[in-house]
């Protein structure tokens, strides 16, 4: 077993409010880790700690360790830009940039200084293929990305993250705005992607967590109540709160 992230005793405050309480958890390579729990339980906050997206929030205080390959990403001198290159993120609502499909994917590599057209073309093609979107868009790369359907836009965002050659992909409810077919495509994609990446996904759909994840973490009121393999969480959870939540007997 190899971990990409090791989180030790992570506490997070938004002002006086403590959103995460003493969280310790490992994220494994080539596995899908699902974060579940009721709204406001801290799962999205936790996800955002992994690539320091919470830095953008005023009044946010963090202590504890988020070790990415043994280095604490919250160390003073940690290179956040390189962290976000290696730890990509896909959001609830697809957010393509208002530019062509090609330029959406090439945006990150260009920011990194890649100017060579052939190389960029190759990156765009590979990324779109990995995101299972290539066949649908290969003849319309010059079209505006906003013309794609919601499901295609979300796969475009995944392709955009992949273009940076990340190691981890964070997904915050990536299918909640999609129809069932687009959702299944993304789920299939997640399953394919774990061969090369570690995926951490926040989902409100317990069926989705049960279908696609290898490990599941149940959060409640800022605490990590239970973390185990998805099979165990959904068949024999150890904690009564987990059982109540996943069986729908708990608000």
């Amino acid at each position: 077993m190899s971990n990409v992230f090791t989180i030790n005793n992570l506490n997070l405050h938004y002002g006086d409010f403590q959103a995460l309480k003493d969280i310790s958890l490992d994220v494994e390579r080539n596995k899908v880790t699902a974060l579940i729990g009721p709204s406001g339980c801290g799962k999205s906050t936790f996800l955002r700690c992994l690539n320091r997206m919470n830095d953008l929030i005023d009044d946010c205080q963090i202590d504890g360790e988020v070790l990415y390959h043994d280095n604490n990403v919250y160390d003073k001198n940690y290179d956040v830009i390189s962290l976000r290159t290696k730890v990509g993120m896909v959001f609830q609502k697809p957010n393509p940039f208002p530019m062509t499909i090609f330029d959406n994917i090439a945006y990150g590599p260009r920011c990194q200084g890649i100017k060579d057209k052939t190389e960029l073309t190759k990156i765009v093609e590979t990324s779109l293929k990995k995101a299972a979107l290539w066949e649908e868009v290969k003849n319309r790369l010059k079209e505006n990305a906003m013309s794609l359907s919601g499901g295609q836009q979300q796969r475009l965002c995944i392709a955009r993250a992949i273009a940076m050659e990340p190691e981890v992909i964070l997904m915050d409810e990536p299918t909640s705005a999609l129809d069932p077919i687009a959702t299944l495509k993304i789920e299939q994609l997640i399953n394919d992607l774990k061969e090369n990446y570690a995926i951490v996904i926040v989902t409100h759909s317990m069926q989705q967590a049960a279908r696609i994840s290898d490990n599941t973490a149940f959060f409640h009121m800022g605490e990590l109540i239970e973390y185990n393999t998805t099979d165990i969480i959904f068949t024999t959870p150890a904690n009564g709160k987990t059982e109540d939540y996943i069986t729908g007997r708990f608000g």
Partner: protein
Amino acid sequence: MTFRTQFEKELEELKLSLIKMGDLVIKNIHLSLHSFIDMNTDLADKIIKDDKLVNQLEYDIEKECMRIILREQPVAKDLRLITSVLKMITDLERIGDHAADISKLTIFMEKNNKPFVVKQVHKMADASEDMIKMALESFVNQDQTIALKVIESDDIVDDYFTEVQKSVADAIRQNNIDADYAIYLMMVAKYLERIGDHAVNIAEWVIFSILGHHRN
């Protein structure tokens, strides 16, 4: 607090259906032994017909389990409970078959009028009926202690079986029993012994539904 009142109602109804099926097979075992001892072929016929009802209940419960899985997508203890029900009805159905098997023997040996009653056969029937009752009780109350008691009770039924075997062997030696009757009586005893085994299976599924793993 629950947001799944309909689901809970469905689970309760599922439990009730299982009890209904259980009650019917217990009644059938009880009557099948009487049909055998009393050589009552009318009663035997009725039990054989009633076995179709047992089979129908199995199909109905199976269908209901599939419907609940489809609509409610149960997890954790709910999933284990429904899985256990699906397995338990197979055992109940087999118990029902054995009651019908005993009744069929009654019909085969209709002309034999030299009954040889071994009291342990009655005790076997009582003990195996109790085992099924306890197994169902342990399921409804999700009570592991009662389930374990069912498993332990199997030895009692097995001991009675050995006693029946000895009594029949003695009777054969002393020429006190009709040869065909001896064979039929041993078959009845064997069916009752198997019924005990099925009750044990049911109890083991109850333990699985409580613990989430099988007993070692």
